[in-house]
């Protein structure tokens, strides 16, 4: 294509058109304009005309729309952003890139310029790259713009941790490789249905390998692991890029190189990288060191800790729990702290109400409902879930009264109203509950602290006689 493109430019036509549409009516180029036009590189038309720019636009739109639609679930968390962008780029972008490359590969056949191209001076590889690389570059450009916007969106609402800029590079290599592989397939099978068929095949393969999340082959897909608290070892993106890029380079060389055995070199590199990925298996991923730390506000009782991945949330969490911790001031037998680390909390600790996955409690770097959060934190302070028998109604009433005093359920009013309109038993239960709440509220400050201290000493007790009555 490059070879006749220089001539095409003199006429301002798209390259290739001349092959079958050599319009005799085109005016001869004027001598004064020729030097400026001739100075343009032949590849310029390949980059700016035809299908290639549309590939970039399509990829940008697909990724940007899919990311924007789910923005509540990643905006504000760097790990979530990385995982979501990566999954979207691979699951959505790779089939699209395969299809785009495949369509571009069938171009010579559609234009019936195959024989003309075969007479060109330049070798097959040069002609192949001149047609395939513009699509690959545009695909990567579309992805890079979408990724930049995504990272910017998270940077505006980030709450801790730091961005991972290497993962998008792996995705870009995977997309470019998909375009090149698609191009080879399109050249080999120039049929109308090949592009959608290839795209669906890409979907099915990627989907199935992800679906079977236990097999070791999943380490070979560019999707990899998308757990939010895991990060890859430093060389994983590099090896993944060698794996995907090597396969694509091998396909291109085997198809277009003058010495086809040169395809063995990238193939060997890809095989080595693939073997390394499969052999290392789960060792490719380790827990993010940041996720194993937490930052704490020690001025309150209990202390409040949030995971270091969300360290900037601490002021919001402390503010949401301010009423609760204020009412617990001076009370004994409380847990030492609310903790927010992976794994079970320690003996003197209780778990902070979950802040992850983001999009529920925390949306775009903000606590969505501080009152709900405070109520959940209050609920965490007692735990009778491990009792063998059902909780005695009198104990449940005491628990409820304490919860209501510390941080009422935002929906408590609605529940009370429903029961007030319910059966006789419901109304009696409501009456008892309101009385228990009133007795706790009417205690003097010192008396209430003493009673609460006694209550929290039995926060895990199952025997109703141990729990102080109201």
């Amino acid at each position, binding site marked *: 294509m490059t070879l006749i493109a220089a001539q095409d430019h003199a006429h301002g036509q798209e390259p290739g058109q001349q092959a079958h549409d050599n319009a005799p009516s085109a005016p001869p180029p004027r001598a004064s304009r020729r030097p400026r036009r001739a100075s343009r590189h032949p590849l310029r038309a390949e980059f700016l005309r035809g299908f290639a720019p549309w590939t970039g636009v399509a990829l940008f739109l697909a990724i940007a729309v*899919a990311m924007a639609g789910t923005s509540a679930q990643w905006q504000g968390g760097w790990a979530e952003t990385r995982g979501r962008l990566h999954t979207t780029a691979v699951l*959505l972008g790779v089939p699209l890139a395969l299809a785009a490359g495949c*369509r571009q590969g069938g171009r010579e056949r*559609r234009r019936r310029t195959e024989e003309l191209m075969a007479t060109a001076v330049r070798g097959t590889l040069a002609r192949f790259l001149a047609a395939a690389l513009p699509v690959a570059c545009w695909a990567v450009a579309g992805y890079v713009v979408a990724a930049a916007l995504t990272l910017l969106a998270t940077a505006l609402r980030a709450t801790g941790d730091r961005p991972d800029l290497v993962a998008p590079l792996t995705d870009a290599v995977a997309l470019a490789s998909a375009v090149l592989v698609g191009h080879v397939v399109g050249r080999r099978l120039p049929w109308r249905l090949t592009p959608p*068929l290839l795209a669906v095949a890409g979907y099915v393969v990627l989907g199935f390998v992800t*679906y079977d999340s236990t097999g070791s082959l999943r380490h070979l897909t560019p999707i990899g692991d998308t757990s939010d608290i895991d990060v890859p070892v430093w060389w994983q993106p590099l090896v993944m890029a060698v794996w995907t890029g090597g396969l694509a380079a091998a396909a291109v060389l085997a198809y277009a190189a003058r010495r086809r055995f040169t395809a063995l070199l990238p193939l060997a590199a890809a095989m080595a990288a693939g073997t390394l990925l499969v052999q290392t298996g789960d060792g490719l991923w380790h827990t993010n060191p940041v996720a194993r730390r937490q930052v704490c506000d020690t001025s309150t009782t209990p202390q409040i800790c949030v995971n270091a991945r969300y360290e900037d949330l601490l002021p919001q969490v402390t503010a949401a729990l301010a009423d609760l911790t204020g009412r617990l001031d001076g009370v004994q037998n409380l847990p030492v702290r609310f903790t927010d680390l992976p794994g079970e909390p320690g003996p003197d600790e209780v778990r902070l109400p979950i802040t992850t996955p983001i999009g529920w409690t925390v949306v775009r770097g903000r606590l969505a409902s501080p009152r709900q959060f405070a109520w959940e934190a209050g609920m965490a302070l007692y735990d009778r879930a491990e009792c063998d028998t059902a909780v005695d109604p009198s104990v449940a009433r005491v628990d409820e009264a304490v919860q209501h005093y510390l941080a009422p359920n935002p929906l408590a009013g609605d529940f009370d109203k429903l029961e007030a309109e319910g059966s006789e038993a419901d109304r009696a239960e409501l009456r008892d509950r309101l009385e228990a709440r009133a007795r706790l509220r009417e205690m003097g400050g010192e008396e209430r602290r003493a009673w609460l201290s006694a209550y929290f000493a039995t926060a895990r007790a199952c025997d109703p006689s141990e729990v102080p009555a109201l």
Partner: protein
Amino acid sequence: MTTSGPLLYVRSRTVPRTVAALAATAALAVWAAHELDAYLDPDRRVPVIALAPLFAAAVIGTSLYTASEELDRTAVRPWWRRRLVHLLTLTALAAALLPWAVLGHASFFGPSAMIRNTLGCTGLTAAAAALLGARLSWLPVFGYVSAVYLGASALRGNSVPLWAWLVQPAAERGAWVVALVAFGVGGVLYVLRGARAEGARD
């Protein structure tokens, strides 16, 4: 020996190959639904329910291509009847074959959801063929389906069944309406206008 007009039409639109591709799609869908252990949970059928109609629609869309567009326009007889029969026959075939992959669970992701998605996707493809050209008609619907499939699970709201009709349970009436409207509009557009003329350079 003379060959009848309909037979020539069928050949010129590569209908035999299209029918074979549709049959292969249905077979692949049956295999995929089985591999996904969809009998355990109808929700696991969603990939099949979304992807099989997408590919069937791509097959039908590319069969709308005519290699002799300018010559066709000089014909004496009206084309719309042939286009109508062509589109309806292939859609009916796809709608009859694909539901075999997802028998049972009619109100969730069962045969009726598969038929709905086949109609909707085919309508979108037919519209794309009329506006973009038949050879690239699969591209818009492909992007749309992928984005909905990835994004819809995360979204809630009253308007979701309207644009995420593809991944709604079969009992959702709004999704049916959207799919039927898509099929109606796309079908009418194609039947009246035919696939957009494409030069050899596209």
